């Protein structure tokens, strides 16, 4: 591929010549909703810019033909800046889709049309979907799509994909799409001249139009520059020289000039197309939005949300009522005795019986932990999280805490991974890729690995410690203190540019129950696929360890370590569990406490150490994927040592002050 001029991309062998349609557009304009509607598949949809960090693919049958539908992360411009944008552009560059659906928000037609112009200019087969028409109409905007279609020379369709409006039109537009003569957009004489000078030096035929590529080169787009180095080996020097010359001439304001020219084009395009009401209509969502971003009302609102959402709903209802019902009433009282008796009847060998229904049995331990303890907690957390996500509250929370997060080297943007971390740190670590700089991503990964307990762990720990008054407080203070301390230190130690914070605020909306539930369901599904095999694997390993005696040796080896932080040797089991899953470890503590093996001090020390302790296998693997071996191992080692050290100090402190005895 490195030597060929005409960059051709093979269509994937599977399915022969399946046609492709790619969804592109700004963040938070409803691409994912549209994707779900077209494919009937499901990707997570949310009211938070930049949630789709990965490319989703699905298939749809449109007018009797099978299409591959590709959902891309949001991008603001063809000239990419962030990682997600690059991912999105890759699709356009490498997969040559047969149709590109540019989805935009009707309320911001003028601003977002700048990208439509870029896509058309690039010679891509564009269909424009003016989405969120319903909310635009509520605001009193009227939009003449017919006129816009004439001016752009491409199909323009109005839609409200969340309300299933316009879907048929979109389908038929895709099915009947023929590349026609789309509008030509002419820049100023100066710029057109610059473009012509660059395109003169291009010889091959490329995936995007020469004009568009010339502009990208002039914007000093690194990726496109690198591509040209490959494509035009011989001609590259001359091209690079010309580009260098022009960029130097226009170094003062090229980006600005280009943006303004595009804005002017967009402005001309929407003249008479969009009619806004004289007076701005203020919706109820905007009123709530105002309340949530003013510190005076926003902070109390946050506390209310946390109290009812996390404490009452997830903590008391999920981790309390439902766990009680499932774990105690269903598993311990009915299911476990029944299944134990059943297995013992069927399998005569005791060792094999142990594997399924013994102390660490796959069913009596693995499944019981997964279904009885973890499931209800995680489910309630995800319902809470998904609901909040869909209201559009998180970006507002982000701006509220941005100032504070700056102290620990992060921006408000990190609020999403941090809050999500309380649900599942593994998932949250994946989401850290939405953060802008490498420095932020590493700090966030570290804090997630160290000081953010996941919901399962949190639920179990809350349940455990609430029985020892004071212990919960000590644990909470420890976590908060360590979170801040490590954050402050990390931001001091880590080199790198200081982060900037900017975020689009989506409108506040009342979440649709269906969407919240589907989203919770898919997250649960992901989570279960993730944890169940690990739980079973852990059970098997523990069983193996037990029958071979290796386990006993491990516990023996760990006893001095446990003793040095004042814990009985049985806690070693919980720590070994903890490596498989954090929540598994916490659930192990739960068992120990029920047996009355630990006092308040020991429980607190164990809970703190275990919360800080090395991330579970899944999180570690994701850390490795996202940050690389080196960083992941460094974080792993640091976290383990730090957890042990903190446990030790806390134990000494508690022994000295006797506040928990």
């Amino acid at each position, binding site marked *: 591929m490195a030597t060929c001029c005409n960059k051709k991309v093979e269509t994937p062998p599977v399915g022969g010549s399946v046609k492709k349609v790619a969804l592109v557009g700004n963040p938070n304009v409803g691409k994912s909703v549209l994707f779900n509607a077209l494919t009937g598949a499901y990707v997570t949809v949310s009211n938070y810019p930049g949630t789709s960090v990965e490319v989703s693919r699905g298939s749809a049958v449109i007018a009797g033909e099978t299409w591959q539908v590709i959902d891309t992360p949001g991008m*603001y411009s063809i000239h990419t800046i962030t990682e997600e944008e690059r991912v999105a552009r890759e699709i356009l560059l490498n997969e040559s889709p047969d149709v590109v659906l540019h989805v935009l928000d009707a309320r*911001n037609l*003028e*601003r977002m049309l700048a990208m439509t112009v870029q896509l058309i200019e690039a010679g891509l087969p564009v269909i424009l979907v003016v989405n969120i028409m319903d909310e635009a109409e509520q605001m009193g905007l009227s939009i003449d799509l017919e006129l816009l279609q004439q001016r752009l020379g491409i199909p323009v369709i109005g839609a409200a994909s969340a309300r299933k409006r316009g879907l048929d039109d979109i389908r038929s537009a895709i099915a009947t799409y023929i590349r026609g003569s789309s509008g030509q957009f002419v820049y100023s004489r100066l710029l057109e001249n610059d473009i012509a000078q660059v395109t003169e030096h291009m010889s091959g035929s490329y995936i995007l139009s020469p004009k568009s590529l010339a502009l990208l080169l002039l914007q000093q787009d690194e990726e496109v520059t690198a591509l040209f180095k490959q494509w035009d080996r011989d001609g590259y020097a001359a091209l690079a020289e010309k580009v260098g010359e022009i960029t130097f001439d226009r170094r003062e304001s090229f980006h600005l000039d280009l943006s*303004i020219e595009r804005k002017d084009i967009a402005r001309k395009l929407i003249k008479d197309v969009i009619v806004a009401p004289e007076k701005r209509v203020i919706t109820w969502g905007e009123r709530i939005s105002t309340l949530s971003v003013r510190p005076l009302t926003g902070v109390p609102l946050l506390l209310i949300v946390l109290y009812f959402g996390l404490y009452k709903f997830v903590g008391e209802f999920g981790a309390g009522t439902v766990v009680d019902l499932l774990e105690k009433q269903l598993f311990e009282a009915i299911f476990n005795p029944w299944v134990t008796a059943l297995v013992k009847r069927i399998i005569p060998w005791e060792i094999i019986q142990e594997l399924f229904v013994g102390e660490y049995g796959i069913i009596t331990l693995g499944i019981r932990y997964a279904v009885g303890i973890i499931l209800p907690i995680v489910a309630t957390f995800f319902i809470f999280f998904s609901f909040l996500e869909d209201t559009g509250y998180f970006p507002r929370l982000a*701006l509220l805490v*941005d100032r504070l997060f700056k102290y620990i080297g992060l*921006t408000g943007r990190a609020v999403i991974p941090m809050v999500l971390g309380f649900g599942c740190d593994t998932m949250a670590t994946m989401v850290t890729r939405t953060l802008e700089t490498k420095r932020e991503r590493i700090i966030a990964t570290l804090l997630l690995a160290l000081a953010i307990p996941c919901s399962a762990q949190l639920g179990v720990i809350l349940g455990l410690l609430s029985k020892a008054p004071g212990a919960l407080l000590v644990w909470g203070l420890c976590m908060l203190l360590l979170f801040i301390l490590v954050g402050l230190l990390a931001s001091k130690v880590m080199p790198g540019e200081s982060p900037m914070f900017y*975020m*689009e605020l989506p409108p506040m909306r009342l979440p649709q129950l269906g969407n919240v539930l589907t989203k919770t369901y898919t997250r649960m599904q992901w989570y279960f696929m993730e944890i169940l095999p690990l739980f079973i694997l852990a059970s098997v390993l523990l069983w193996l360890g037990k029958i071979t005696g290796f386990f006993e040796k491990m516990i023996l080896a760990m006893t001095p370590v446990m003793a040095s932080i004042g814990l009985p040797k049985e806690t070693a089991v919980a720590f070994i569990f903890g490596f498989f899953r954090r929540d598994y470890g916490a659930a192990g503590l739960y068992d120990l406490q029920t047996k009355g093996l630990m006092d308040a001090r020991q429980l607190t020390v164990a809970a703190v150490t275990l919360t800080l302790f090395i991330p579970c296998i899944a999180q570690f693997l994701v850390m490795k994927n996202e940050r690389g071996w080196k960083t992941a191992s460094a974080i792993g080692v640091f976290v383990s040592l730090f957890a042990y050290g903190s446990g030790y100090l806390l134990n000494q402190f508690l022994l000295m002050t006797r506040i928990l005895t």
Partner: protein
Amino acid sequence: MKLSEKAEEILEALWVVEEEGRTFLDPEKIGIPLDDPSYAELTGHTLIVIRKGMVYFRPEGREEGKITIRRHRLAERLMMDVLNIRGDEGEYKACQFEHMLNEGADVKVCTMLNHPSTCPHGKPIPPGDCCAEARAKGDLGIVPLTEFKSGQEGEIAYIQTEDNKKMQKLMAMGVLPGNKIKLVQAFPSYIFRVGYSEFAIDTNLAREIFVRK
């Protein structure tokens, strides 16, 4: 009134002397001896009087001195703040440049500099009519977004940032010169509205967006 450059220098020196609390200027101190024709020029316009070899303002002269010193200090600001010519060279260029700031040019420069009240050395610049007018209208001129009050509306004048990526990000969000902007909130983060979209940014970014009311 069109005066010679030397005459203007005498007026400026006299102004500075008065600023320092004295009432007269010793010609020897500025190196322009009394027999220089510019003194005759100034007395001819009844701007100064000379008593016992010392120079004093007449009331009309004080008015003229004020205008002259204003031009000088505006020129200094222009050299140092905008053109980034500092030190002796800046001073020298300012001395040359100030003589061109007549017939309304001073108003233009003053407005562009957003009606500065002091020169780079911290001395006051006497306000001109344009300054008084701007104040009366509450016209802030071009200021960073951080200077706006919550609820205030304006137009984006320009973005000033060293960081190209930042600039592009802002422009992609619709922060483009000429667009209407409304500051919705200034604490704990800045929230502004462009078109029908709202954005939140931190103080560092807000400082780089310049707006005019």
